[in-house]
């Protein structure tokens, strides 16, 4: 705890240590207005160092243990990097489609989980509702049908992951240069039976998010919002592609900063700043610099960046969504939820398309080519662009590993969102329940997976501290 030199200390509750992971400090200026907000990420793992010395083929199964919420993303990003090490990056059609199926299954379950388990309580009960009921168990009690849909959608995605990766969490399906199984006709038929129902449910979830945004637009437009750059992968023709593509970045006005950049050159374009108060780094686009080069990633950035979506229902929905920006990128933080649901529908459409593709029953599973010493793999994970980069020596041992995970890219934006909300809702020197609620809602829009960067489900424990201009804590509050 900070020392309290000077006599400015007003309240210092004897707080039990909260369950860690995220903690917010608000710094006031001399006038008592919010000068800066800091969201501290307090867990450190050390993956970059301790995977050194391990054989490269372990990376897809090892590094996914960063995160049990989106393990498939790490599994596949690492696999794409090691594909390059074995020279097998031109996957066979069966391997590529099996991996895509796995990935869209992951996208489907993750977006459904976030929406139903984490966000729907805020939307259904209101930001200010009692936290005792504003949770998924509250939803299950009051809206049992909706809760069942949420549970069954997650289950569907998880079953796809199991059929493609071998296991629902921390599977082993992707191997260097390919995949270790195809999809049997029996497995396929089980999924085909339910896919139309999933597509229907996904569209009704989308409708909830859309209607909610439309009804509350006045309030949401400014809520935790700010102009920013946006970064994601796009396909060569500009389409949304969650498995593979090139880097594109746009500024708040929609001007392109990067376009169709081969991600193997990411080090020329992206760097991460270290700040002493958080274990999570702060990425930025080098040409713009650390001050202004930060950006958002994830569903909002992806829909702002892509030119179109190659599945019909999601494309129709995208067109409706982008109207929100009047020809400019959408910088409304709460629009993340709507964008995420457009992707949920897209994922269901893609799953259907893939299930009907006979390549999934092919036998040619692995490609090999010229051995390399280095591999870089990027993917659009549910929460945004995920970077894996490995170097290996002549004994196949990893000598360098660099990981930039999705949530890390959103570090600066989350800090900004908290600051905006605090400016708006901090009244005097008391941290109110209302302020706490609003900070939580703003952070949750980014679906932060601090487990990747560190830990914690989207509904994170929160400790907020208020500091005056001299650095004294004048108020602190935790969510009980």
């Amino acid at each position: 705890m900070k020392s309290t030199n000077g006599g400015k200390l007003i309240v210092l509750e004897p707080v039990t240590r909260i369950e860690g992971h995220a903690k917010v400090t608000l710094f006031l200026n001399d006038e008592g207005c919010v000068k800066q907000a800091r969201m501290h990420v307090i867990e450190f793992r050390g993956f970059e160092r301790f995977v050194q010395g391990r054989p490269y083929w372990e990376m897809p199964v090892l590094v996914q243990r960063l995160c049990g919420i989106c393990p498939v993303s790490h599994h596949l990003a690492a696999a794409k990097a090691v594909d390059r090490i074995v020279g097998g990056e031109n996957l066979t059609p069966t391997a590529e489609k099996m991996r895509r199926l796995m990935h869209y299954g992951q996208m489907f379950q993750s977006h459904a989980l976030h929406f139903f388990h984490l966000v729907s309580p805020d939307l259904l009960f209101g930001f200010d509702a009692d936290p005792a009921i504003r949770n998924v168990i509250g939803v299950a009690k009051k809206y049992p049908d909706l809760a069942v849909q949420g549970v069954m959608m997650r289950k569907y995605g998880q079953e796809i992951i199991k059929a493609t990766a071998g296991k629902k969490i921390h599977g082993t399906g992707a191997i260097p240069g390919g995949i270790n199984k195809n999809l049997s006709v029996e497995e396929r038929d089980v999924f085909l039976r339910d896919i139309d129902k999933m597509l229907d449910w996904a569209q009704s979830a989308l409708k909830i998010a859309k209607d909610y945004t439309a009804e509350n637009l006045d309030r949401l437009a400014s809520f935790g919002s700010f102009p920013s750059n946006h970064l994601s992968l796009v396909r060569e023709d500009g389409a949304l592609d969650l498995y593979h593509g090139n880097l594109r970045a746009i500024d708040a006005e929609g001007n392109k900063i990067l376009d169709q950049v081969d991600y193997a050159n990411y080090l020329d374009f992206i760097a991460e700043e270290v700040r002493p108060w958080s274990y999570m780094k702060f990425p930025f686009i080098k040409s713009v610099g650390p001050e202004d080069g930060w950006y958002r990633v994830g569903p909002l950035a992806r829909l702002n960046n892509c030119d179109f979506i190659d599945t019909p229902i999601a494309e129709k929905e995208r067109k409706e969504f982008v109207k929100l920006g009047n020809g400019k990128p959408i910088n409304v933080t709460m629009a993340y939820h709507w964008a995420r649901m457009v992707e949920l529908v897209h994922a269901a459409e893609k799953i259907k398309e893939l299930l009907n593709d006979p390549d999934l029953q092919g036998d040619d599973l692995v490609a090999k080519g010229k051995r390399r010493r280095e591999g870089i793999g990027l993917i659009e994970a549910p929460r945004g662009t995920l970077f894996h980069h490995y170097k290996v020596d002549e004994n196949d041992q990893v000598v360098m590993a660099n990981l930039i995970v999705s949530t890390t890219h959103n570090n600066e934006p989350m800090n900004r969102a908290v600051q905006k909300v605090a400016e708006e809702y901090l009244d005097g020197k008391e941290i109110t329940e209302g302020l706490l609620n609003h900070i939580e809602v703003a952070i949750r829009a980014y679906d932060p997976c601090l487990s990747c960067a560190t830990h914690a489900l989207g509904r994170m424990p929160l400790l907020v501290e208020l500091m005056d201009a001299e650095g004294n804590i004048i108020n602190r509050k935790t969510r009980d």
Partner: protein
Amino acid sequence: MEKPKVATTSLAGCFGCHMSLLDIDDRILKLIQLVDFDKSPVDDIKKFSGDCLVGLIEGGCANEENVEVLRQFRRHCSILIAVGDCAIMGGLPAMRNGIPLQECLDEAYRNGPSVYNPSGRVPNADELPLILNRVYPCSEVVKIDYHLPGCPPPADTLWEAVVALLNGKPLNLPYELIKYD
């Protein structure tokens, strides 16, 4: 009759064990009939409201905060279960145990190819809890009553274990539920 209470937490884990618990799918609706969830990321309750019958722990102890939370769980729960390899033996994060902590920090915050760190400082502000010299299994910190292995243990394993415990029955896990990749 009051329902028994269950609390859960994730220490130095990846949340995969919690996700595996969610993979009991629609049985989760049955579970909330059987028990009340107390402090848990599943329901967002952040402080113990009272004593619990069962505490499920994911993850080992990597910093002083993990230790604090684990001790709190021991004080409030009659039965403490270490769920998954991280809680049982440190798991994957314990791969750092053979390496000096400074080297891990240097790699992440000084030497990495995308690092921009003109001051050369590694994060060390007062807000950040002390990192432990190594990752400790839960049983080295407090008494643990049961261990459920797996990374993560399958949903069915978790379900069978919790149900057996609630009914006071012995736990018989078939081979398929304790076989791992």
